[in-house]
């Protein structure tokens, strides 16, 4: 479980990149758009899981860092002419920096108090996105110009698809290395017992801060991918329903595992479209169905779908 991941575990990432390059000319734009959305949610969910599942920090500010990533990437490009790659790196670093400040401020808080403090931050961030009209366009929203990635102009789903597939592969690869590293072990130790971790020589304070920073940076990267295939953003995209959706992806997929949030992102990301096409009568009950899935998951699959699969197959994380 620890040390560098094997080539066999890294091979699916290569397959993801190949699919990302081969698929666009073969399928309609709608499916590519759906695929882009799912990959973006996957990055977001993996990032949240690092904080929630691996480090055990019950925090809700993730969607705000995602917003910082979206607006950061878009505004760096439109206002300062900074291309996508440095733009998304700066925006992700900014999200990580804000996460650092939140972590320092909220470091003494736990459980519901941490949840409330970070939720308040997420709400404040949405207020800022809504109110800072000169920069974000406020409630009217902001038109996103197609970014250029090393001369490859995205802006359509087909052109964004390979780029997002590569970014997702890099994020998953980085997470594999991270969760198998010394820091990954420290995150798990802090999650399981802060006291035990502390007496084992782990700097709990620093580990918790790293969890926030890395998770916030992932959310910033996810925000950057949003700019690759969407042409419009407004603060509605960073509301409470989005927090619940990403949280559901992590919980339903399986907390504290890498395949879990990926499974959750695909299932819950596809659910509205499946309901729209195959279960039309149920579509109006979408929110209720989300709630039911979450409740049933907590009752019957507390370790999520991947937990169930791993238990049946006798597999570890």
């Amino acid at each position, binding site marked *: 479980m620890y040390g560098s991941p094997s080539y066999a575990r890294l091979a699916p990432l290569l397959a993801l990149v190949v699919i990302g390059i081969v698929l666009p000319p073969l399928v*309609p734009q709608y*499916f590519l*758009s*759906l695929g882009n959305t799912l990959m973006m949610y996957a990055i977001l969910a993996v990032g949240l899981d690092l904080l929630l599942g691996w480090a055990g920090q019950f925090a809700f500010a993730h969607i705000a860092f995602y917003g910082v990533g979206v607006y950061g990437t878009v505004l760096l490009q439109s206002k300062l002419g900074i291309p996508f790659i440095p733009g998304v790196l700066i925006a992700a670093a900014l999200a990580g920096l804000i996460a650092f400040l939140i972590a320092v401020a909220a470091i003494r808080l736990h459980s519901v108090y941490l949840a409330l403090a970070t939720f308040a931050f997420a709400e404040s961030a949405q207020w800022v996105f809504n109110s800072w009209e000169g920069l974000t366009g406020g409630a*009217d*929203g902001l038109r996103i110009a197609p970014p250029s990635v090393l001369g490859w102009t995205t802006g359509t789903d087909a052109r964004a698809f390979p780029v997002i597939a590569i970014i997702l592969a890099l994020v998953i690869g980085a997470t594999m290395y991270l969760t198998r590293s010394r820091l990954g072990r420290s995150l798990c130790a802090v999650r399981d017992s802060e006291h035990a971790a502390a007496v084992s020589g782990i700097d709990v304070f620093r580990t918790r801060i790293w969890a926030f920073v890395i998770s916030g940076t992932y959310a910033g990267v996810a925000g950057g991918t949003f700019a690759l295939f969407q042409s419009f953003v*407004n603060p509605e995209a960073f509301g409470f329903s989005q927090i619940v959706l990403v949280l559901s992806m992590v919980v339903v997929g399986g907390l504290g595992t890498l395949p879990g949030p990926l499974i959750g992102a695909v299932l819950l990301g596809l659910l509205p479209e499946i309901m729209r096409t195959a279960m039309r009568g149920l579509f*109006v*009950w979408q929110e209720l169905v989300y709630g039911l899935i979450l409740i049933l998951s907590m009752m019957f699959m507390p370790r999520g779908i991947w937990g169930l699969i791993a238990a049946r197959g006798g597999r570890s994380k």
Partner: protein
Amino acid sequence: MLATLIRNLFLGAGAALALGSLPVRAADPGVTDTEIVIGLHAPLSGPLAAFGVDALNAAKMWYEEVNKKGGINGRKIRLIVEDDKCNPNETVLLDKRLVTVDKVFLINGGSCTPAVFAAQEFITREKVPFVMLNAAGDSGVFPATRYMFGALGGTQRSNGAGMVEFAFNTLKARRMAFIIHDDDFGNANWATAKAITDRLGVQVVAAERISPRVTDVTAPMLNIRAAKPDVIISAAYPQPAVLIAQKYGEFKMTAIPLVQAVQGIPVPAVFQKNVANDAIFTNFYYTAPLNDMADGPKQQKWLKMYKQYYPDRNPGAMMAFGLPSAMAVTRALEKVGRNLTREAFVEAMESLDFDTGAVAGNIQFAKGRRDGMRSTIVVKFDGKKHTVMPAVYTWNGRDGM
């Protein structure tokens, strides 16, 4: 040599005649010899469903009426109906499916401005005509883009203009107070209201911007009371509009006229029940971009037709807002004739100028104009009776731009 040339000329002419007599085949997706496929969407679930369900039903009803009469130029209309929840990202994804998978000819959809605005870039790139269902759609129609038509129930600019003109001309108000949301709807409304008050030399004594999710309006209403206005103009949505009306009554402000924009009072009876204080209706007015009250004599034709199609449903005021867009679509399709292409449809839309018999003014588009209707009426409601005020207020297309 000459004989060969003559023979080839005759063969060519014969072939051209034969091809000309074949049924016309349109090149654009969504059109066959027998049908035209239209994507129709609105919020049918979630908190904004009240804006979409009846409007979408009304549009569907109109298309079915057209089909009953034989369709358009020999083609029947086939609808693909979807729920967009007024969510921008879901709307874009949905429109991508309608265009690239379902291969619709055009889209008639959207009840919320951010959602239709989000779709604008995609439909422009794909060159697909998009006629908004009942979204005010200010940011979708200003500035005009080739493929997006909207505001067939008026924009927030025309709505804001109507309220200020009414307050100035009929109520003779010279000190106005505004309570307006801090979202795109409110921004568009406020831009026009402010421009007109400036032009008319009216003093704005209070301009309170509130969140659409506000749960208490005590502070803004106390500010307005302290400013001693001649009129209070509210452009709030249903729930905040109820809160405003309750505080208006509680703070004994009923001597000051309250003018409420249509979006806050989609069903007057429900509004009255929720406010639960009939004293507020002493001096109460609301705007409507319809040609009459929602259940007035001029609307009866549509209400009867709606009851025939949906006998179990009591339509809200939004019902009639769904008709003009469907009417505009069918008129433009008729104008184009059998050689139906998306480009020809856009040009036909640009030439429309007609009375729907449902909304306050003519539906009118032109090159460079994509907002379809600019008029509004005002209704006085005393808690029992609705009385349409005599004038129709029409925005000049310049104030607030």
